[in-house]
Structure formats: C-alpha cells, structure tokens
C-alpha cells in the first residue's frame, strides 16, 4: 500500500467502528483490503459513468427536447475506447489479484504447522505438540502459522474473515492455508461450504495470543504425547515397523529421512514425498510401490481415521535417521510446539 499509513488506519478503523468492515487481524488483511478499495472505486466510477450517460442522454435527448432522432451507425473509435479501457482495468485487477493469491496461498518456509480435520460438524485442530482442540484454535501472534487441513467426510471450508483467509477442506486431499495474526483477540472460524444439516453451527473461534500467552497455553493444555509420539505408537501397533524397520533384511523401504525426498517408483515415475503422498501410500500402497520392493503392502483404507493418518505422517516426517526409528523424536520444524524429551513409548 502506497498510501499514508495514518490515512489507512483512519479509514479502516472508522469503517470497522461503523460495523461495515471486518477487523484487520492478520498481515494479509491490509493487502486484501487495499485491493477491495481499488475494486470498490472501480465499481463506483463505472456506475457513475453509466449513470451519467443514461441520465444525461435521457434529459438531453428526450422526445420533448429532441423530437427527431438522428441516426448514427456507430463509431469504431468510441467502441475501441470502451473495449480497451475496461480490458486494461480488468487486466490490472487480474495481476493485482494474482499477486495477492500467491501471497495468501504460498506459505513462508518457517511457518509452524497445525493440522485441522473438518468433520460434520466440527473443526478439530491438532497441534504437533499433541494439543487437541474442538471448534477452537490457539495461535501465537507475529508468527506464520500454516494449517494442513483435511476433511473426514464432505467438503467443508475453513474461513477466518478477520484474517481474510479461506480454503476448502476436502475429503481425501490435504489443503493448506496460512496466516500471520497481528492482533490478540478471538475471531470467528466459519465453515463456508454447505456441509449438511448443521452447516451453520460449524463455527469455531481462533484465539490469537501473545507469544508468552501462547507458550503458557501450550504447556497447560498438553496431553503429554506429541502427534509424532502418537504416530510412533500407531506405527508399532499396526505392525508397520515389521517391514519398515530400516534393516537391510526388511521387506519395505526405510522411512528415515524419506520425507521431502524424491522417490523412484517401480513404474518408473519419480514422486516428491510430502504429506499427501505419504497419506495416499498408506491408503493405496499398490499404486505407490518403491523401486526395488515387492507390492506386498496391504491397504489400510478404512482402518485408520484421518487423525491417525496425521499422526503417522507426522511421525514419518520427523524420522530423520535410522537411529531414530527406535527413538521418539524432537521435531525439526516446529521446535516450539513439540516436546524434546526422549520418548518412553513401548509397543
């Protein structure tokens, strides 16, 4: 925004106070609002132009003022003008909107990750440290937070109007959204995709806390087990470690350090191992056979909940060395949220 910050503050505060405008509570919000004001300006100018033309001509050329019409065929120059000028304005809007889209949907690499599972009719948030919340989400201000989201049943849509972010939550697919909250407070979380009977009751609250308060909240609401620890326990109880043990003799590939790497499959293709790939490889293993291994892994479709899959993915994500297959892990990416104590999990 290249307008005076003072003017901007005045404008947005005044509008917000008049209840015609949502609070600006994330770093994205002022960017979205700037485009919004531009578009409103465009609309008002366009409307005034059309209005002036209509009323002006109506008065000047009414039957009373102009009893006889003069036939005019058209004018290439005029028509070219009103083709090119709107086109130019719309292209500016396109570029501006595209830049904003990339800003909103490309998370910074240092964002901390929180998982969100949408189900009829609630939001379940899972922090890497193992804190679970229903229809609530606690986040620190001044720090980019990425949500990795999936739906357990139908399409939902995660929307925080005061942050100006929204993203569809889709069954069978991870989607992400990120924001950087700026002002402590509580804000609505809405489900904006119609999802059945209690659609309008699928409302939650995101609470933005100062870093100290967030630290405190994290400590007070821990369940004692991080997602990765839950994942490790699940990994053992489902028998995954029998094949994916990391030994030379094992029947499955070693999972240590696999996250984020490129994997060669038997069908010759190369895939990037990310959350979505890991989830799909657990549910549809026959379609993702690593080169050099037999297609013997059974499907786990229907045996694991989305929450469980998140735990497993988080566990595999955090497996960085062979040694750690036997260990419980700290986390490399979100060291604030994950416990650092070595694990005591026994199968």
């Amino acid at each position, binding site marked *: 925004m290249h307008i005076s910050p003072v003017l901007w503050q005045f404008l947005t505060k005044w509008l917000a106070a008049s209840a015609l405008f949502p609070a600006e509570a994330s770093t994205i919000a002022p960017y979205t609002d700037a485009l919004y004001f531009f578009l409103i300006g465009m609309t008002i100018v366009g409307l005034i132009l059309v209005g002036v*033309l209509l009323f002006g001509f109506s008065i000047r050329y009414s039957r009373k003022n102009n009893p006889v019409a003069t036939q005019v*065929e058209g004018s290439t120059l005029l028509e070219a003008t009103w083709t090119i000028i709107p086109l130019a304005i719309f292209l500016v809007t*396109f570029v501006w909107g*595209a830049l904003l889209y990339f800003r909103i949907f490309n998370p910074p690499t240092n964002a901390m990750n929180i998982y969100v599972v949408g189900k009829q009719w609630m939001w379940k948030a899972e922090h890497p440290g193992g804190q679970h919340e229903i229809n609530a989400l606690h986040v620190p201000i001044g720090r980019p937070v990425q949500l990795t989201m999936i739906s357990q049943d*139908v399409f939902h849509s995660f929307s925080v109007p005061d942050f100006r972010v929204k993203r*569809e939550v889709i069954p069978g697919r991870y*989607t992400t959204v990120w924001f950087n909250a700026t002002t402590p407070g509580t804000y609505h979380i809405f489900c904006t995709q119609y999802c059945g009977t209690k659609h309008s009751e699928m409302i939650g609250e995101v609470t933005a806390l100062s870093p100290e308060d967030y630290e405190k909240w994290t400590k007070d609401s821990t369940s004692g087990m991080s997602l990765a620890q839950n994942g490790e326990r699940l990994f053992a109880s489902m028998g995954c470690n029998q094949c994916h043990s990391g030994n030379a003799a094992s029947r499955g590939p070693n999972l240590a350090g696999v996250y984020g790497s490129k994997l060669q499959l038997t069908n010759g293709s190369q895939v990037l191992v990310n959350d979505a790939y890991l989830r799909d490889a657990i549910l549809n293993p026959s379609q993702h056979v690593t080169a050099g291994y037999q297609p013997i892994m059974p499907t786990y479709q229907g045996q694991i909940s989305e929450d469980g899959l998140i735990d497993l993915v988080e566990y595999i994500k955090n497996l960085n060395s062979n040694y750690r297959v036997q260990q419980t892990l700290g986390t490399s990416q979100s060291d604030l949220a994950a416990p650092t104590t070595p694990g005591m999990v026994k199968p």
Partner: protein
Amino acid sequence: MSASTYTIVNLPDQATATMPKRHYINNEHGLLSWLFTADHKRIAMLYLMSITFFFFIGGAFAGLIRLELLTPQPDLVASDTYNKFFTMHGIVMIFLFLVPSVPATLGNFLIPIMLGAKDLAFPKINLLSWYLYMAGGMFTLAALVLGGVDTGWTFTTPLSTHYLNTHVVTAATAIFIAGFSSIFTGLNFIVTIHRMRAPGMTWFRMPLFVWANYAASVLMVLGTPVLAIAIVLVALERLIGIGVFDPTKGGDPLLFQHLFWFYSHPAVYIMILPGMGVISEVISTFSRKRVFGYTAVAFSSVAIAVFGFFVWAHHMFIMGVSNYSALVFSLLTMLVAVPSAIKIFNWAFTLQKGSITFETPMLYAFGFMGLFTIGGLTGVFLGSLGMDIHLTETYFIVAHFHFVMVGGMLMAFLAGIHFWWPKMTGRMYPESMSKLAAVVTFIGFNLTFLPQFILGYLGMPRRYHAYPQEYQVLNVLSTAGATVLGVGYLLPMLYLAWSLKYGEIAGDNPWQATGLEWQIQSPPLTENFTEIPVVDYEAYDYEWLANKTEHEVTTVG
C-alpha cells in the same frame, strides 16, 4: 459515421384500433387445442403460465428464507427445513425459471416472427420441450411434496451422494428432464435461425434479440449434456455406489465440481444473454434509433458464449486447484467481462441523439443497465484471485449473482413482457400502474441485495440458518427490501391479468417499432404472415418505417 434525420409520419391511431377477428388465441378452442398445439405462440403462452407459476413457488421460498434470517437465532424453522428451503429456491429459480424464462416464452413467441417464418423448424419438438419442462417441474414438486431435498442447487458431492437421505434422486431426475427441454429449445432455435429466415433477412439484418438467443442456444446445446452426465453420475453413485466422486474408492470429489460448473457457469450466460437481447430491442425502440454499433453488440453475444465455456474453474479457486490453472481461469474470467462492458456502453450511446420516451419497458431497461453494471463489476471482484479467497462462499457472492440474475435477467424479462404484451395479447397494460411497479421493484431490489455485499465482506457465509448477532442489522434491511421487492413482483401479475380483459386495444404497432413482429396484426394470426415477407431494410431502420405506408410491404407469393 453516417447520419440522417427523419420524421414519423404514421403515428398510431389507438382510438380507432380494433381487435382483429381471427388470431392465434381464438383460432381454435378448448383445452386440448392448447395441449396439442404446435403453434409456437401458443406454446410460448403455455410456458409463460407455467414459468410464472414456478416463479411464485421459488419466490415463496425466497420469502421464507428472508423471514428466517430476520433474527440471528434459528427460530422460524429447524435447520434441515431451512436447508430444504434454499435448495428448493435455487433449483426452482434456476432450472425452472431463469434458464427457460426469456428463450422459452419471448424467444418462442418472437423468433419465428422476427425472422419472417411461420413457425419454428420443429414445431412438435417444441411442444415436446414444454412437456419435458412440465415433467421436470412435476418431479421437482414431487421432491418437495415427498419431504424435500437439502443438497443445495449445486448438488456438491460427496454430501449429495453419501450423506443425505432426502429426495436427491428425484430432484436429480427433475433437472435431468428439464435439461432436455432446454437442449431441444436450443436446437430448435439454432435450426430455425439458420434455415427459416425470410428472403432478404440476412444474418446482419436479424434483430439483436435473435442474435442473443442464438448465442444462448449454442450454450444450451453444448453445455446442458454435461450437466446431464454429472447428474446421472450423482444418481448412480447414490444408487449403486460406482465411486466416481468417492475418494475412498479412488474417485475424485473435485471432478463433480468440474463437470457441474462446466454447465453451470455458462448457464449464467444462458440466462443473461436473451435478457440482453430484450434490452437491445427496448432501448432501440424507445430512443427511435438503430442500436449503436449493431455488429459489435451482435458479436459480443457470440464472444460471451465462446468465452463463457472457458471460465468454469473460477468457482474453484480455493479448492486446491493448482495455482497456475487458477491464473489461467482468472485471466479468462477478466476477458469475459469485456463484451459485457461493450454492450453497456453501446446501449448508453444508442440513446445519444435519440428521441427518447420513458414507457415501462424502458424503465425496466434502465433498471437493468444499473443493476447489471453493479452485478458485472462485482463479478470482477470474484474473478480476481486474491479477492475471491475472502469473498467466495459469503453473502457477497449471493448479492453478486442476484444482481446479475435477478437484477439483470428478471428486469430484462419484465421489460420484455411489458414490451411485447400488446403483441402477445392485443391489449395494452395500464401504464401508470406498471411504472409504479417498475420503480417499486428497483427500490426493493437494491434494498434487498446491497446490504448483502457488506455482509459478505464482513464474512457472513452463505446458506447459514443462524448467524452471529453482529450481522443482524444488515439482515433486517435485506428482509425489509425483500418485502418491497415481493410487492413489485405481485403488481405486474395482477394488472397484466386485469389487462387481458380490460386493457386498451393495442393495435398492430403501438410503439412504432421496426421489427417484423410489429408489422403484423396483434395478436398475430396462427400462421404469422399471410404472405412471406421480403426484408429489404436493415434492422432498426426507423427511416424505412417512417416512409412506409400500410400497403407498401413487399411480399412474395
């Protein structure tokens, strides 16, 4: 630029106009003569009656929705009832009112006459279209009577296929059948326009109303089958679980959205293009001028139809489509806005140097221009990627598409009904009453939907049965507006019915308009023309009209 002047010599003498002895309405008598008619004008009247019926059903649900939203609490009905209300409102209004309204009534009535033909190319298929429409309507009513359906008009999977136990298949059948009505109408128009033009009626002498319906017909014929496929897949998924949209069976829930919007975005243009055709006729007639840049307006209809097919994924910007496909669809969406802008300015400049009068159809046309400008420009908000994220799925979108489809389309429909009412019935509507209705409608419309833009930016999601307290004031305003709007819609219903018996006799050409339809008697004969007309003048040639006397119409055997 060529310019010339003329004076009107043959002003209508309405005092002496008499009803013609024989016309299409009294040509045959009895219910069966209507139910088995192959006359495009009678079929148009059948459509007009049935469409009006469904409009008031859809409107009643709109009223119930607005009533529930008067307070933040869910106090009028339970949430699943509310969900059934907005589903029924959407299905009825879109598939049974907006899509068929102008083409099936005004288009059916006028296109053959405007081209100088005695009927459409396939009169019996035309009648079949109406029966299919009614069958679709009956299935919709059946779904309603049996207990309703709560998928929303978008039938989003897997909600519609796996999670709802309402009458989804019945409603899907309704849409499937009504879709074929639309395909047949489109096909009939395309063939008629290609093959049945009178001698001298070249493509660029056709009224812009015909051009607009031609473009819409192409969309109907190419788009509707995709909707039919999508809806059949939903039914199959429900009934036998084929799993095309089910991720647990390897299906893709996003595929449904692609298929559905491939039709349902062009459907917006199926609705609005014929309405734009009406506006061209009305503005030209009441400013007594040829439409400014006739060719550009004709081609902009075609451009809208072509581009209209390449923008569907802008409904899915937040659904995890790749960033780059989002870019492409956003750019194409911006491009489709341009022909609409061209039309608006061409209409405005048609007024320039005209000799303008302000009869009711003209008032509705002005209303259309204002509301459609707002509707179109707010569409640019939604086509703009970053802005769309915040606005989509909120009341902003509700307001936007109501501005386009209700503010635009319905205003155009009312403009057209008033404009051609004298031709269709032989009688005038009461002028001062209808002007009042036009003004009431315009005020009511703005009061209903302007607050919803603000609600949307504040974040109120659509399809919410209950909402946080802070949104109440704007919702109350909106409901108040809806009440005014309802009055605006009831008035024409009453005075038009009244005019059937008591309206002034209209005469052949009460507006002194140039189209072929105005050169024959009102109401027309069953065969439209006693002799096939020869067209030797351009569309909207008011000079020709001024110089013509009754006996100078050129005809061939």
